[in-house]
Every structure is written in C-alpha cells, then in structure tokens.
C-alpha cells in the first residue's frame, strides 16, 4: 500500500496556492432586485440551519448582501422560509 501512495495520479492537476477570486453575482449578472417570493433562490444564501451565510463565503457586495438579508427576512415572515430548521438542503 505504501508503494501505491507514491504513485497517485490525478486526472486533473490539483489546484495549489492560487484561488479563484470571488465575485458578487448580483453585480456580475446585473440583478438589481432580489425577490423575497422566490425561496429556492434565497436558499443559496443560507446554511443548513436556515441561517444567512456571510459575505466572506458568498462573495456578495455589501449593497446586495443587505438586500439578500432583507429578502430572506421577508420570506421568513410570510412562511416561505423557516426561521430555524435542520437539514434544509
């Protein structure tokens, strides 16, 4: 087994060091309004417990992160998204 480990080959070269730069998808795609009536879309910005993901992870700009937050809160109020949950995805 030890001999095998030395000969591991990757189909694609593993990415080391350089990471792709994150971007704000709302700016990139020109989305200017975030709809609270679309829970499937908002789900992308939530973790499994239904909590809002930080900008650090999603890469949203501050302007649109605020709008995402607003939309998620509205969706929660009208029962389209849960306030607290487990295993949402």
């Amino acid at each position, binding site marked *: 087994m030890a001999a095998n480990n030395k000969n591991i080959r990757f189909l694609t070269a593993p990415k080391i060091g350089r990471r*792709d730069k994150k971007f704000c998808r709302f700016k990139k795609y020109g989305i200017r*309004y975030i709809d609270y009536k679309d829970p499937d879309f908002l789900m992308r910005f939530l973790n499994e417990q239904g909590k809002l993901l930080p900008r650090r992870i999603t890469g949203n700009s501050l302007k649109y992160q605020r709008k995402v937050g607003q939309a998620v809160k509205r969706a929660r*109020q009208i029962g389209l998204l849960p306030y607290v949950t487990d295993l949402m995805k």
Partner: protein
Amino acid sequence: MNNYELIMILNPVISEEEVRATTGKYRDMMTAAGGSIVNEEAWGMRQLAYPIQKKTTGIYHLLEFTGPGEIVDQMEIQFKRDDVIIRQMITRLDKFAVEYNEKRRKGEIGKKKQAFVADMTAAAAENKEA
C-alpha cells in the same frame, strides 16, 4: 402614488367562495381609496415553512397595486379585524422591483434563472474539485 405588493395567507379551511369574497373585499377597498390593481396572483394552497396559528398550510394570494399611502393604513386596520387572514405583508416596491415584477409576469425571469442555476452548479462542482 406608490407601488405596493400585498401578500396574504388565508386560513386553509375556508371554501373557495370565501377566498373569492375576501380577495374581492380588499380589491374593492383599494379601488375605492383611489388605487388601481396592477397584478393579481392566486398561488393556492401551499405548505408553510413553519406552523402559523397551529396551521401547517395556507392559501397564498398576491396583489400588486399602486395608490396613495393611506390605503395601507386603512387595510392594516382591516387585516387585524379579519380572522380569515392568518398572515399578511405589504411591501413598498422600488423602481427595480416594479421592473422585475413586469418581467416576472411576462415569464422572462425563469429563463435568466435557468442560466443562473447552470452557472451556480458549475461553480459548485468547481468548488468541490478544489
């Protein structure tokens, strides 16, 4: 004149006639107070994400309208008296929201979303690889 969007959740046990009566009531209220209806959508019965007043389903109804701000105050008083409505929300729409809703009505949003979804799944696959 402002643009508003009202979304209400009705009690799931009421009959179809009662649904029509309640939505009709609010529609009349809007027009009587000098507003006009832009769009109306009946989403029908839907599962709630969490129980509201011990109910797990609700009948969703969406009304988009324009009118003076006083309508909202009048309607909010009515909502409190109305026990058929279990939850409601009025949001003011900015110009981007109005634009979005127009596109949504024409069915243009879905197409963009599909492209977006494809892009997102590709990005997710890339993340997994990395």
